[in-house]
């Protein structure tokens, strides 16, 4: 009896914890969005910080990212083409490559890369700022942390995910075309036809929205986790751990939802 009671109590505590966390994230998100639409936010200083964030998140890793996309795309295109040739579905190979790489894999991997590199950094930074009372100090000096610390990172994250995905996708498209048709323009019509079949207006918009959500997830969730950190230094790693776990779950959830919306 006591065991059952303990079990129910533990479940209840977990549910409350989840709810609190979710609420905190949602509250934070609401604050972000309200700051975003406030005209006063968009001043020179904010824009300057956003530019810096884009630099740190996207431009600094551009060469690494492009090599990484090249490798992943080349491997997947080669495997898809040889398998399609073996089973006699070569006609479907182009569409398969475009769907798998451009619509699903590249946005997801880009978000994952940014989460690993910038998301974890943001989480640690915010947690340390919280522990060291820097956020309170900034507020005290009338420097809104939301406007000058959080929002630029979120905007930079979203822009980075979209920008890197666009660059990677274009690279992959060229790679796919040359892998299938070689250095000739003979397959251009057929290729265009496949592209037009895959990329409807709805799909393009869905891809954009998905990238925005990915960008939001990889920046907002680590920040929210950092802000939750109790003012104890040893809680910083725990905060990063929780934040990154949430980022991962959110990325998978977005991906699954997007797939469900597109194919079900």
């Amino acid at each position, binding site marked *: 009896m006591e065991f059952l009671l303990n079990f129910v109590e533990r479940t209840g505590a977990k549910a409350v914890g989840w709810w609190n966390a979710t609420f905190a994230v949602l509250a934070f998100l609401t604050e972000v969005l309200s700051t975003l639409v406030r005209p006063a936010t968009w001043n020179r200083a904010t824009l300057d910080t956003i*530019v*810096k964030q*884009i*630099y740190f998140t*996207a*431009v600094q890793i*551009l060469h690494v990212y492009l090599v990484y996309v090249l490798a992943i795309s080349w491997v997947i295109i080669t495997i898809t083409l040889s398998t399609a040739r073996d*089973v*006699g*579905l070569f*006609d*479907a190979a182009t569409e398969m490559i475009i769907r798998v790489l451009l619509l699903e894999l590249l946005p997801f991997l880009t978000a994952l890369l940014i989460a690993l590199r910038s998301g974890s950094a943001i989480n640690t930074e915010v947690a340390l700022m919280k522990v060291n009372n820097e956020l309170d100090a900034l507020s005290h000096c009338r420097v809104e942390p939301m406007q000058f610390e959080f929002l630029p990172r979120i905007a930079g994250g979203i*822009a980075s995910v*979209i*920008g890197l995905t*666009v*660059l990677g*996708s*274009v690279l992959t*498209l060229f790679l796919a075309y040359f892998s299938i048709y070689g250095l000739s323009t003979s397959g251009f*019509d*057929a290729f*265009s*036809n496949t*592209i*037009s*079949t895959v*990329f*409807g207006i709805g799909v*393009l918009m869905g891809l954009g929205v998905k990238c925005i959500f990915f960008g939001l997830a990889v920046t907002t969730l680590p920040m929210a986790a950092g802000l939750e950190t109790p003012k104890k230094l040893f809680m910083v790693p725990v905060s990063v751990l929780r934040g990154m776990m949430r980022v991962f779950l959110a990325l998978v959830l977005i991906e699954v939802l997007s797939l469900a919306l597109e194919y079900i």
Partner: protein
Amino acid sequence: MFKNLHLKVGLFVITVLVLALAFLVYVLHARGFFEQRMHLQLAAASAEGITPGMPLTFSGMPIGQVASVNLNDAGGIVIKAEISQSGAKWLRTDSTFNLDKPLVGGAKIKVSTPDLSSPQLPDNATVLLLVTDPAQEIPALIERVKNILANVEHITRQDGELNSTLANAKTITTRMSGKYGVLEGVLGSEENARPVVNSLKNLEGLTARLNEVSAKVDAMLVKADRWLFAEDGMSEQSKQALAQVRSMLTDAQGSLKRVDELLKNAVDISANVKDGTQDLAKLRADIDDSVRKANDLLNDINRMWPFGGDADMKLP
């Protein structure tokens, strides 16, 4: 600390924007946003397997795609297709539209134009979509294959004809590999084949002996030849005998003439019969003598003439 930070970010953002815009324009171009597309309506009995985006191909090259599949108020199928400007020129009034649903791979609508000189198909034309579905033929095919397999099973069953035929064939070929080869196979056993082989062997001996006989006959013929046609041979003797015959016949002719005269006398002197009868008796003795001589001669000839008697040659 971060040199050219703004420049790099600016370059990144501009590149991304330009590429995104270019891609958008490319997709819109590929979807035929910038060109006047030709529209077609396809009439089909069923929309099964037809989905928006399904390509229309001419000689294997994509020229357009199905834009929408709908039911109209009367429950009919309305398939709308869009053809690119470059693909529209291949569509003629006698073009046929076939729904091609392979067992593996995506379905497509195949357009074929037998005569490219016929007039162009107008925009918004309604054409018939022919559906050939191999999947529907499969059950019938399976039924036939089943029958064939049942027959094969019947033929190849444990105690079936094929098995016994094969067993027989095996027996025959086993016998053929025996001492007497094919003969044994045909005749059934070694015992049956042995007499045939023996007869053949006998025949061989017989032929050898026949050869000897013919050699002997040859020799005899040479002898006969010599006996008959040599200097003092049989033919020479015959010639002499014939000369004798001729002289004897001359004698006989003379005697007969005398008989003639006598008969004439007999007629002349028939009155004096008494005298005549004495001459007749003498004449008769003469004739008898001539005939006996001729008879002897003929006997002589018969004796000497080699071919007069039995002419058959007896072989040993």
